């Protein structure tokens, strides 16, 4: 026989055995009470999973906006700026006035200013073509956005090659993956099957540039370029664009405008600032704005969207939590009833040596047990329901995407593991808290009164 033991705290296993035994005695009532918790927990899981799923979808689409470490910088012009005209025109005469409206051009000097901002990894000017463009490949015709890039290595912009290389040489181009889809056969009759998008890699494309003189006569210029690379999909502007050396685009723009372009004076039309890491993007963005340029980073937009989804998660979680609150009241009610019914049992437990803490632990354990059982059921049902919703939503949305174009969703409802664990812990905690008052009442009963209770 073991030595006499005088501890006032139950061993965990003994407590567990007692609690499970007590819950087992009242299966029906425990099950009914737990159903409330099941519903609440499942509601929390489904709603929060839905909010997370929505956020994931939004992010998948948003990452197409561009590399989040990039900031697009545009010059600030005074009012009255003419698209391709002869440079900025000052209005109001406040030359030294400073302020946001003061013109600030992306001159070579300005690029040095940008490069000097801490956290800036690279400053890459870009320019668009200021003429109309038609691209021909064999008998197909197409159109695309032509962008001049101020670097010879496109990996500086975080781009990746699906085919070929990322290095631009004079007379070569690198195209986005969707460019080929924009080619069509002009001789195609209505009703005829359109041709498949051609594989343009390593092909020669004929560019027809078009400008008009002052009398409105069309002037054409034809140049042939070699496609040396095809980019991977980024879901951004580059997907539909043809990338060319900035010098080449500058020459074309000089032809289109009939005058020389001096970047030292006129400035670039756009500069991409590559930031060393995402954490620095917003600070750099602010620094650029402070210099008087227009700066845009998709990050602030993405962050705004993310904040919205975090709020959405809380709102959805809160709606589910209301169901859990109702369940908590159910647990409190069940435990209060149990303590009334078992008053004599409580008296007996005390008579045979249970301390107040023992009694408290037993009843808290029972309440937490109901929460845990309900939480377990809720986690299971919530997760299964989420999976079911996913299957339905993906099938439906995939058919929608197939009909209307666009990117099909990969998930509608996303249930992360942490949510399941959190919900289970939360349900158990809710049970524990609901049981606190009844358990305290049980623990502090005077033993003799409890024993005499009828």
């Amino acid at each position, binding site marked *: *026989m*073991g030595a*006499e*033991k*005088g*501890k*006032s705290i*139950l*061993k965990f296993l*003994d407590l567990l*055995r*007692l609690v499970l*035994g007590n819950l087992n*005695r009242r299966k029906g009532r425990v099950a009914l009470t737990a159903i409330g918790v099941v519903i609440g927990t499942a509601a929390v899981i489904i709603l929060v999973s839905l909010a997370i799923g929505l956020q994931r979808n939004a992010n998948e689409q948003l990452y197409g906006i561009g590399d989040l470490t990039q900031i697009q910088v545009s010059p600030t012009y005074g009012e009255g700026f003419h698209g391709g005209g002869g440079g900025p025109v000052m209005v109001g005469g406040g030359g030294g006035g400073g302020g946001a409206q003061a013109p600030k051009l992306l001159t070579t000097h300005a690029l040095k200013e940008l490069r000097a901002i801490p956290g800036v990894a690279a400053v890459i000017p870009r320019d668009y073509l200021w003429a109309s463009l038609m691209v021909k490949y064999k008998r197909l015709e197409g159109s695309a956005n032509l962008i001049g890039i101020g670097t010879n290595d496109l990996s500086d912009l975080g781009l990746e090659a699906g085919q070929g290389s990322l290095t631009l040489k004079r007379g070569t181009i690198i195209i986005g993956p969707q460019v080929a889809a924009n080619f069509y056969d002009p001789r195609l009759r209505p009703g005829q099957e359109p041709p498949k998008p051609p594989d343009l890699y390593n092909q020669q494309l004929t560019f027809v540039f078009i400008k008009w003189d002052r009398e409105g006569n069309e002037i054409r210029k034809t140049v042939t370029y070699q496609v040396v690379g095809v980019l991977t999909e980024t879901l951004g502007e580059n997907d539909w664009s043809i990338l060319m050396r900035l010098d080449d685009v500058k020459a074309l723009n000089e032809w289109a405008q009939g005058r020389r372009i001096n970047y030292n004076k006129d400035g670039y039309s756009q500069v991409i600032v590559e930031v060393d890491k995402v954490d620095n993007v917003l600070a750099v963005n602010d620094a650029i704005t402070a210099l008087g340029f227009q700066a845009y980073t998709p990050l602030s937009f993405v962050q705004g969207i993310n904040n919205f989804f975090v709020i959405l998660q809380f709102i959805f979680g809160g709606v589910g939590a209301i169901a859990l609150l109702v369940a908590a009241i159910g647990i409190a009610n069940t435990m209060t009833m149990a303590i009334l019914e078992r008053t*004599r*049992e409580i*008296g*007996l*437990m*005390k*008579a*045979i*040596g*249970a*301390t*107040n*803490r*023992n009694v408290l632990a037993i009843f808290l354990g029972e309440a937490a047990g109901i929460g845990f059982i309900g939480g377990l059921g809720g986690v299971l049902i919530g997760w299964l329901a989420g999976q079911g919703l996913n299957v339905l939503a993906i099938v439906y949305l995939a058919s929608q995407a197939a009909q209307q174009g666009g990117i099909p969703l990969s998930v509608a409802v996303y249930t992360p593991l942490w949510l399941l664990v959190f919900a289970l812990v939360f349900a158990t905690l809710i049970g524990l808290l609901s049981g606190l008052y009844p358990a305290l009442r049980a623990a502090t009963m*005077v*033993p*003799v009164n409890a*024993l005499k209770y009828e």
Partner: protein
Amino acid sequence: MSSPFIRIRGLQKHYQMGGVTVRALDGVDIDIPRQTFTVVMGPSGSGKSTLLYLLGGLDRPTGGQIEFDGQRLDEMDENQLALFRRKAVGFIFQSYNLIQSMNAAENVGFPMQFAGFSPKERAARSLDLLARVSLGDRSLHRPSELSGGQQQRVAIARSLVNEPSLILADEPTGNLDTASGAGIMQLLSDLHKSGRTVLVVSHDPRMVRFATHKIFLLDGRVVSENEYHAASLE
């Protein structure tokens, strides 16, 4: 014998009931030596059950002292009282107070759970004790499947499970027929003979035959046997 096993001095227990102070015990002095069989007798309302509960640490006195084996019960906190009840006292109740959802062996072993014994130890000891109260073959029966006498014997086995030195019984034969009651009295007497101190509250006159000591209570005070009989004749 230097100091008695239990020494009660000036013990008082007052209740407030409907604005009236009920003096359940009103200045009681009692000495109970070790290894005795004491029967407390008195009409209902005389304070005899109150005395038993105070002695067992289930209630707290309004005034006075209770000394148990040199320890002052009236000075203990809740936790100390619980440990005192666990180690030193075995309770037997009129209505048995068995837990209906537990079988006989589980009921007997229940107090050991709070004392931290392993399930194996509990089972072994419960079966041993059930055999000693002649219920070795009923260990898996639930209280509802046992007669009143058998249930009370399960309760006696339970009271012994933590090997207490004091057994307190509150009207243990009150709910039983004559034959079963006699069996229970015999069992209590055997416990006394095996070296335990037994204190029984009862108004069953047959219990007196086993008693080594008798205490008579009237209106919360200890009286002599003559006074007691004189009062009960009136």
